[in-house]
């Protein structure tokens, strides 16, 4: 197995204790995925002072096994692409705070204060909200109880613990199909369980799964069962026949879609019925000076390349906003 070595050294640009005091950044970017990182690069090229508030760099891309539809790369792993994003962003002196925003408010002179879970308060002239989405839960009995004991939310992190074991992957989209492919490589006996009729994953991925995994379409996982702190099986229901049955499994990988990380923004900017931040074609939110980009917004199609493009638009829109304000 060739060994690879990944670098993400935030220390050179980390925000030192108290450094934020009496400082007003031109831009605070909340989120470190493709949208946030691209926004950072565009903003730095405009010589704005930028702080990125995010617990990680890469966002959902970090959890993506392989990517075949980002232009310039016929195939690249999520880890490699996020590494390239990070390297490009860190060419500039972007301040970085490895925390999450927990509260936003607008103060005098059209400035914004972001409070973080680490107790820091960051003041900025503009905000770019790019917090992405997170995996949805099944919300069934056993899911919380066995989280970390057979229930898995990060396939690339935890798949090695299930080598050679029977596993269930919940979901019918690209992320579920990718997780199933990773698990096949670890000699797992994989059952892919899709709630909806028809598979949403790209046909090219489904073709790779044919004959190598058990495909259960239109099935609902009713319960995750276990013994002695470990998952031992799931209770399933065929949604057509309503017939219930048991399936022995050591792991349940949950890949059933995403919900936006926008709870903090409720009441601060307008959200749509899916709790995504409503933006116009220039990434403007309902509040002047606040822009949003990527998967947490109402922009249709959640793709890495689209998030990156929206991040660029948001940074430029924020730059124009500040320039206009100064004059």
């Amino acid at each position, binding site marked *: 197995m060739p060994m690879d070595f990944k670098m993400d*050294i935030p220390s050179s640009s980390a925000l030192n204790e108290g450094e934020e005091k009496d400082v007003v950044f031109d831009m605070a970017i909340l989120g470190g995925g493709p949208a946030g990182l691209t926004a950072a690069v565009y903003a730095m090229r405009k010589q704005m002072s930028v702080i990125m508030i995010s617990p990680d760099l890469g966002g959902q891309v970090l959890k993506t096994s392989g990517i075949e539809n980002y232009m310039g790369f016929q195939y690249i792993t999520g880890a490699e692409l996020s590494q390239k994003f990070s390297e490009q962003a860190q060419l500039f002196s972007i301040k970085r705070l490895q925390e999450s925003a927990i509260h936003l408010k607008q103060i005098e002179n059209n400035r914004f204060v972001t409070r973080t879970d680490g107790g820091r308060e960051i003041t900025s002239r503009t905000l770019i909200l790019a917090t992405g989405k997170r995996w949805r839960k099944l919300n069934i009995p056993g899911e919380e109880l066995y989280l970390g004991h057979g229930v898995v939310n990060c396939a690339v992190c935890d798949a090695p613990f299930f080598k050679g074991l029977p596993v269930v992957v919940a979901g019918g989209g690209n992320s579920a199909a990718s997780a199933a492919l990773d698990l096949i490589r670890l000699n797992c006996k994989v059952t892919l369980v899709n709630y909806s009729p028809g598979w949403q994953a790209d046909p090219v991925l489904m073709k790779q799964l044919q004959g190598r995994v058990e495909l259960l379409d239109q099935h609902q996982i009713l319960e995750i069962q276990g013994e002695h702190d470990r998952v031992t099986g799931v209770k399933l229901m065929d949604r057509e026949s309503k017939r219930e049955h048991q399936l022995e499994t050591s792991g349940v990988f949950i890949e059933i879609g995403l919900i936006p990380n926008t709870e903090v923004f409720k009441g601060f900017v307008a959200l749509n019925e899916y709790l995504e931040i409503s933006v116009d074609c220039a990434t403007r939110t309902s509040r002047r000076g606040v822009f949003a980009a990527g998967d947490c917004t109402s922009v249709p199609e959640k793709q890495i390349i689209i998030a990156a493009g929206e991040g660029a638009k948001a940074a430029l829109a924020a730059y124009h906003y500040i320039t206009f304000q100064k004059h």
Partner: protein
Amino acid sequence: MALLDEKIRAQVQPQAQALIKPVTLHVFTQELECQFCRETRQLAEELAAMAPEKIKVAVHNFVLDKAEVETYKIDKIPALAVVGEQDYGIRFFGIPGGYEFTSLLQAITMVGSGDAGLSQASRMKLGALIKPVNLKVYVTLTCPYCPQAVHLAHQMAMASPLIRAEMIEATEFPHLANRDQIMAVPKVVIDGIGSFEGALPEALFIEKIIALVNGGKT
């Protein structure tokens, strides 16, 4: 064949040469029956070659060099102790490859700077510790969230003489992963006291550990 490519060397070398204080990488190894011993030693030697004045490597045979094994409290290999002016208790068990290469660089940079980089509030909280603590941070090399937990644990080890912090690559030590019921990473285990999963921000991470150690709660 070199483990680190030219691009990584170009990025690491300036950092290595900029270290303020010397760092010694104590590598514990043996010739046979150790999956990544050879690569771990090679990795340490390639890093040292980038700044020979700043980074030294000391290779110890796990079976024969009993004094060093005892001094650095090594019970499995491959093992790597990152030691500066003193031994802060910073350990890597298993090769620090993949995402954990970041953790190794962070440990070297931190020890070489002489500063753990924790906030004043965190240092004060660590002062409330009442007994020695051994933090085991289980990781996989494909886990992007793990280096954050490993580095925080190593920062705590450097800041407090009561703390020793170990990265453990779970797939290289399946018997330990099995014993500590590791099925998700990062997972922090404090022997005989408790454990928690996930990478947390500095303040929460330290609070959780202090509560576990001083409160004895799981």
